[in-house]
């Protein structure tokens, strides 16, 4: 159990004004614009997907932060020619309390899809699930207040079994509860198929490798695609 720099869960609130759509049209490899930029250089039709999370979002330990799952998704959006811009607002070590304080700064930019990936660090520090729930709810409330039309996605997280069955179960239950209450799309477990597989994780056993991040992105994409607006979809 190493440093406290990680996190696992994510909630994903995507907010798009139109219907969902998914396009499979492979495009030439264009490097994705992953990083956060406030300059809205793009035309007004480009919408913003904001990933708000911890080290899993930030890409802790990866050579290039754009290899983290938001970056993978950005590349996918790009290759599908979907008019979305990805903003990675992940900070390693972030807890739900930290996220709750930080969210105001982040909400200065217009958001169409809000993806919430926080809680893992709470779990690793043994913070009470009640506290985690409270903070997540507060974050969601703030997003809703500012951008009532934004789509919300919550990325679910779990703590490893060694934490003890009581805590594991209470913690796991936090995410479906928040999602249901706020009518958010839910990825049940962000690290499905990655957590516990040594080959897909960095040596610390917590953070996915580049390969792991692709699977994580797939987990997210399955849910996220339903929240995207496919007006320009070219099937």
């Amino acid at each position, binding site marked *: 159990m190493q440093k406290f720099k990680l996190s696992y869960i994510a909630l994903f609130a995507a907010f798009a004004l139109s219907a969902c759509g998914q396009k499979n049209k492979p495009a030439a490899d264009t490097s994705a614009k992953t990083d956060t930029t406030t300059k809205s250089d793009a035309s007004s039709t480009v919408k913003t997907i904001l990933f708000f999370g911890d080290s899993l979002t930030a890409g802790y330990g990866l050579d290039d932060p754009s290899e983290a799952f938001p970056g993978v998704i950005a590349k996918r959006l790009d290759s599908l020619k979907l008019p979305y811009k990805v903003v990675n607002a992940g900070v*390693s070590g972030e807890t739900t*309390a930290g996220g709750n304080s930080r969210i105001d700064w*982040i909400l200065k930019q217009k958001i169409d899809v809000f993806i919430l990936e926080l809680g893992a660090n709470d779990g*690793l520090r043994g913070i009470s699930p009640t506290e985690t729930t409270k903070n997540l709810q507060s974050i969601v409330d703030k997003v809703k207040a500012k951008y009532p039309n934004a789509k919300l996605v919550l990325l679910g997280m779990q703590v490893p079994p060694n934490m*003890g069955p009581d805590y594991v179960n209470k913690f796991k239950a936090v995410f479906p509860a928040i999602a249901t209450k706020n009518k958010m799309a839910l990825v049940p477990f962000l690290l499905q198929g990655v957590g516990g597989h040594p080959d897909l994780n960095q040596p610390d056993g917590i953070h996915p490798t580049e390969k792991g991040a692709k699977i994580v992105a797939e987990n997210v994409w399955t849910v996220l695609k339903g929240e995207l607006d496919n007006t320009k979809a070219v099937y």
Partner: protein
Amino acid sequence: MDPVNYKRKINVGWLFNMAWRDSRKNRSRLFLFISAIVFGIAALVAIYSFRYNVQNDVDSQAATLIGADLLVSGNKPADAPLKKILDSLGDKRSTERSFASMAFFPKTNGTRLVQIRALQGDYPYYGTIETTPIEAGTSFKNGQTALVDKTLMLQFNVHIGDSVRVGNEFFEVVGTLNKAPGQSGAMAGIAPVIYIPMKYLEQTGLMKIGSRVNYTFYYKYDHPVDMDKLTKKLDPILDKAGMNYDTIKTRKENTGRAFGDLGRFLSLVGFVALLLGCVGVASAIHIYVREKIASIAIMRCLGVKASEAFLIYLIQIVGIGLIGSVVGAALGTAIQHLLPIIFKDFIPFTISVQISWMAIGQGILLGVIISILFALLPLISVRNISPLNTLRMSFDDAGRPRDPLRWLVYALIILFIVGFTFLQLDSWVGSLFFTLGILIAFMILAGIATLLMRAMKLIINSGWSYLWRQGFANLYRPNNQTLILMVSIGLSTMFICTLFFIQSILIGQVNLSSSGNQSNMILFDIQKSQKDAVADVTRKQGLPVLQQVPIVTVRLEQINGKTAADLTKDTTIKIPHGVFAYEYRVTFRDTLSVSEKLTDGKWIGKAEAGKDVPVSVEENLARRANLKIGDKLVFNVQGVPMPAYVASIRKVNWGKVQTNFQVVFPTGVLEDAPQFQVLLTHVSSNKVSVAFQQAIVKRFPNVSIIDLGLVLSILDELLSKISYVIRFMSAFSIITGIVVLIASVRISKYQRIQESVLLRTLGASRKQIFAITALEYLFLGSLSALTGILIAVAGSWLLAKYSFEIPYSVSFLPAMVLFFIITILTVIIGLLNSRGVLNKPPLEILRSNA
């Protein structure tokens, strides 16, 4: 009368006989010389013995940092081939699995994050798991029982006999865990430890797929093993398996520089002891043999061959050297045994007192070899002493013409010093440099002595009063002692002073968390809105807020317009990728902290609105990212690009428990950025710690607390031991140095007797002789002490810079005090030396010392 047969065979028996007979002539004088050797060797043996013992003590304490000879750990179970290798290591093995879990205390209904350590085997092999009651440390492995960290016991009001639930199983608490080997690192701080026996681990139900567990294997070797070789072999295998190893040595290295400093300091002490021994023995032998030249000339007149004379005195010297060294070794060992008993109330730890045969052996060998080598110098000239020398009184010049054998002896002496230095330092380069340093010091002292003699010859004129003329003339007249006293006083002063300087510099480096108000508890993840309230609670608990800093996470996006993407495209850009991938934890403030020092540029504490932000970059980061003053940077402060430039470069002392930063922003830009606060405080006891943690957790459940008290207390114990050892060894060596110095000045006793007696016979008053002697010694003492101290200033600077690599600072006051002490000591001994002459009728002295 038969003609002398110079072809006669050497009669060994007769040589020994002559050596013995010659020594009978003046036993009291002989005793004086032997005593100088005794002091020199006693100093050496005592210092060496202490050194070996103390080194062993510290080493065995260091072993408790890890508790075994070798530790292998990883966060995956070992696969079959690896397991086979792991099982082949060590003579005794223990395994441990450790992981974070939520422990539940039914009595108080409390839940808390803890670190579970499931142990199997007899670990620890060094040190003990310290518990209350004591026997619980080993007996807990016998049943479904647990040891619980002291703070945890207090926090949840748990008592021996209560139970704790780990996973699905209840364990009876049989002991309070006070201290355990190998308990260090961040995890030990963030979560208190609970030990359970390994055999009950499976049924807790916590070992499932996805569980994050650390697997640790402890090994103990019953026979000596070359760990470096072993780990070198293991390294690639373990590395491939994603496992790490730790040995006592690596742990010591990671513990900080204290061990290295101690090692280097002890080497220095060993070297100084060696030279103190040399000074003691060499000066005694040198003067002794010089005095014998007259006797040798007489023997030659009576038909003794030059080679025979040479051998007679060589035998005598070996005898003297051997007796002196053996007695010295015995005395040194006695001191080593007695001192700790006498001072046991002052020394806060026990020094083990084992007889160190290594020290004794080295002492005796060294005594004899130095005796011979330094006797050889004057004895070589014996070969050239013609019987005529008896009649001429100027034996000073005997055999002066360049004698190649002399150079051979010099070479031997140097070789010998390098060799013995190597025994102390274990490094040829170091030995060469140390010897070179001593040679230079020696030459400076000898040069100054020669200059002094020349200058005196020129300066003294008849205008001076008789006493002054006489006193100063003694410095250059034949049979003067300027050179030998300058060198021995100067060198001893230099050693004493160097040890003192280095000692005080090293002690200044040791920061104990218990001393002063060093932080031992860290609160983090405090939200901005909680900032004042948390500080408030801290103060209300009577605890100091040692530091409270905001931390903002930023990323570096551009350096002089280059981005991470540019790096991938253009491989000629000399910026490592990590510089952009890294998330920087930065802070903002308007002043430098005490642990920081500007090395370049200008510190700007406040940002001007609308302009690029002046930031301060830490030295290592600047080097890695190739940053210079004025370089343009663009930071990404969680979505907001912030143009900045490198305004200054700082050096940061990372060794202390406090917040340090790679990048520091000025005030005025990041105040509104997302941030959390870190608060550092000092708690004095477990009780205080528990009360404080409870108060914080209750009001601020999101705040995490790291209690470094336990980790630091183990380190503190070690560091304070090390610093006491350094103090003790330096104090002891300094005192020994002074004793050796006294002894070597004391042997000049007979040099001046004849003249003093003559002066008295001619009608000089006691007062006049007193004044003449005092002047001579005052001048010699002060000049050589001054030279010695100056050499020490330079020497310790070099040592600090190149050997210890620590900032140099010199305290002049103690140096001044030392200067006066040595000067006064020299004068006092000089006067004591001539006391006999002053108090007795001249004839009596002439008869007894003829």
